[in-house]
């Protein structure tokens, strides 16, 4: 069976990607990054709303999570892009969205909004848990120094909550890069869409999907390295150590080296 694979297609997709493919890769990256950023902002707003003294604000935050965590992402993507038009005959999102300095494909924009809205529901829970994980004494100390709630939140609580938020945030972004493939269904040619189109014209699904799986793996691997660096840096500042870059590399290698010694 394996012999039936046309290896040269796979090779070419991996080692000699054409500019159409690179563009698709770039779309996946920027859609994921922007949607994740939107998700973090919405999650933060949602988390703060959840702590409000005003009941309707808390309910709104709860409803948001209920809806966006409780329905399929692809349905949300369809509703964001087509919903207003089909329900009310409104064109909320034009074919091309103009930001002045640059323009963006309307479908890509809708995809970012939908992915971000969905992500915000999950981020709200992660950020809330992060804030809860900060010792209660910190807020008391900040307040006893005359800091109003918002200032205490911004200067004292959120910086410490970051340490609890970053690891799950990294996992969320990993999922985001893969989930972004769903925007193909509203016509955005990103990484998955590119493979889908190529396969439908060549009838070589295995080759193209293997190649696209490889490229997703590259994206998530690059991200996991970046994430590890961020977490390491946070842990260092928490401990109060000032390690040089050389020491940090050495420390990162220490377990590997120890394992190598043990194996021998």
């Amino acid at each position, binding site marked *: 069976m394996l012999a039936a694979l046309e290896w040269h297609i796979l090779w070419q997709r991996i080692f000699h990607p054409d500019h159409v493919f690179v563009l698709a890769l770039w779309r996946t990256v920027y859609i994921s990054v922007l949607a994740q950023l939107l998700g973090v902002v919405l999650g933060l707003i949602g988390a703060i709303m959840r702590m409000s003294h005003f009941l309707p604000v808390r309910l709104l935050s709860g409803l948001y999570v209920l809806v966006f965590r409780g329905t399929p992402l692809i349905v949300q993507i369809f509703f964001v892009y087509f919903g207003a038009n089909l329900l009310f005959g409104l064109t909320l999102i034009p074919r091309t969205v103009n930001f002045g300095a640059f323009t963006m494909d309307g479908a890509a924009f809708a995809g970012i909004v939908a992915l971000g809205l969905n992500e915000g529901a999950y981020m709200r829970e992660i950020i809330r848990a992060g804030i809860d994980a900060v010792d209660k004494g910190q807020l008391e*100390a900040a307040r006893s120094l005359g800091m109003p709630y918002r200032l205490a939140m911004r200067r*004292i609580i959120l910086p410490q909550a970051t340490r609890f938020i970053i690891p799950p945030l990294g996992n969320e972004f990993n999922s985001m890069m893969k989930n972004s493939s769903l925007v193909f269904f509203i016509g955005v040619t990103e990484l998955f869409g590119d493979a889908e189109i190529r396969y439908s014209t060549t009838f070589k699904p295995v080759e193209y999907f293997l190649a696209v799986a490889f490229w997703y793996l590259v994206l998530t691997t690059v991200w996991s390295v970046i994430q590890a660096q961020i977490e390491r840096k946070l842990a260092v500042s928490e401990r109060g150590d000032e390690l040089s870059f050389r020491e940090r590399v050495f420390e990162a290698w220490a377990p590997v080296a120890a394992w190598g010694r043990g194996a021998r």
Partner: protein
Amino acid sequence: MTPDATIMRAEDVVKRFGRLEVLKGVSLEVHSGETVCIIGPSGSGKTTFIRCINHLETIDSGLIEVNGHLIGYRKQNGELVEDSEKNIAKQRCEIGMVFQRFNLFPHKTALENVIEAPVCVRNLPKRQAIQEGEALLARVGLADKRDVYPGKLSGGQQQRVAIARALAMKPALMLFDEPTSALDPETIGEVLVAMEELAHAGMTMIVVTHEMGFAREAADRVVMMDEGCIIEEGTPEHFFTSPDNDRTKQFLSKIL
């Protein structure tokens, strides 16, 4: 301000946690430059009372004034209503607090901990705040730890930084909530020395403590609380030689 001006006045303070009444009408006046130690068995309401003074706890009736300002509440049509977040924050600037568990900001160095509130709340220029912060750290004997994070300091050192941090706001009143209870025995002394120095320098202080040695040395007045009431108050001499109240005698015989 006359030397014996009232800094803190509590009148008939009642505090309930659900159905449990933890303060049953506590009244106390503290004058400028005075050091008052509050002692008593655990569960007597000492910590709750001191937390009410800077409104970390709401109160159910009575009133608390610091420097003549109502704390946490304002009068509206003859009734007391809870004040706005912003006003309460302003009132707290006058009141320094030192916690049992230090509560230093772990993501900031010793100096950053000290200058945080003066810069962000009082809008002091950073250079001036750093100068004052360094002087305060020197005062508690930690000038050389200015760039060290709390995680690398001993308990006693952390608590001294916490004292410097509270002093940086130039408060009229300092509250200490069992400042040595979470410390290793060998570091208690250095914190008590810093507090004694502060008391002698004329700071107005209310100290909840189990350190009878400190109460004897540094306090102008000792207040004994039990079951949500102040049951006896007097000079340290009176207290430790001839207390009137039986429960005070019992408590002191157990602890001394």
